């Protein structure tokens, strides 16, 4: 029964209809929230006592870093659904999320490196958090290359799903790297169990920028998945009606 429900709900045609309807609302709401949050963070929050104004990079770096890991977890979830229930849409989503994940991980790495210059005195350190994030970036690129190197798409989807699940071991390593090893990268300032170590005047715009950036990334995933679905299903009659 669950299988039947998933197959009905997750048909590529139904998915495209739903996301086309939701896209403009998600896009304009997220863009507004993100622009307000960035303005708030860059111009209205007070200067940090220790880091000076360089801490304002937090409003650009942290959302990208958070999303780069969340997207991988999303890929792992979709991979599991594909391997268990053979849902085609899940396989398409795994391939669609990978380039967006690579882009957000790239932003996280570059923004972190630039932030490192005024705060650490170096743009790069062989630090556990930075290395595990670099591995995540290489994994995203590797997964894209692997999928595109196959001529048989069904085989490629299966291999990709298995590799994504194997690679998901890196996500808890990234998360816990600052706790398990002595790292130059600071430990988490916001946790579920403890009171945030950031002043509310700096914390609220951070939450807002994370929400706005997440929404924009969701829009990118929608566009990427739309492209991959149309490409893979191009011989189906419904695609000709759709375009």
């Amino acid at each position, binding site marked *: 029964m669950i299988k039947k429900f998933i197959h009905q709900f997750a048909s590529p045609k139904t998915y495209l209809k739903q996301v086309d309807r939701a896209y403009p609302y998600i896009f304009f709401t997220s863009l507004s929230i993100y622009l307000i949050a*960035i303005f708030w963070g*860059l*111009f*209205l*929050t*007070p*200067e940090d*006592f220790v*880091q*000076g*104004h*360089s801490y*304002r*990079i937090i409003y*650009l*770096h942290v959302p*990208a870093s958070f999303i780069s890991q969340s997207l991988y977890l999303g890929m792992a979830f979709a991979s599991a659904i594909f391997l268990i229930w053979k849902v085609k849409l899940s396989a398409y989503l795994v391939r669609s999320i990978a380039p*967006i994940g690579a*882009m957000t991980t*790239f*932003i996280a790495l*570059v*923004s972190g490196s*630039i*932030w490192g*210059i*005024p705060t650490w005195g170096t743009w790069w350190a062989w630090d556990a958090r930075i290395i595990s994030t670099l591995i995540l970036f290489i994994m995203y690129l590797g997964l894209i290359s692997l999928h595109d190197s196959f001529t048989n798409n069904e085989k490629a989807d299966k291999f990709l799903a298995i590799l994504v699940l194997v690679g998901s071991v890196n996500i808890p390593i990234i998360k816990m790297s600052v706790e398990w090893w002595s790292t130059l990268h600071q430990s988490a300032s916001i946790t579920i169990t403890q009171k945030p170590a950031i002043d*509310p*005047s700096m914390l*609220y715009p951070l939450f807002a920028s994370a929400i706005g950036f997440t929404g*924009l990334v969701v*829009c*990118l995933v929608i*566009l*990427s998945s*739309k*492209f991959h679905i*149309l*490409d893979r299903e*191009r011989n189906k009659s419904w*695609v*000709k009606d759709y*375009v």
Partner: protein
Amino acid sequence: MFNFAFSSMSEAILMESQNGQNHGIYVWSVFLIVFGALILTFIIYKNKIRNLSKKIK
């Protein structure tokens, strides 16, 4: 909470911190990279979808 942290536009661009260093170059570089990457990715996918739709038609 909603007071401007800078008294002029040039101060906001330079972002001179209490230790005398100008942090604007770092903050604005990251700003350009993030917004550049987002805009570029949106444009790339919009174009990809448009070109593919033309081919399918």
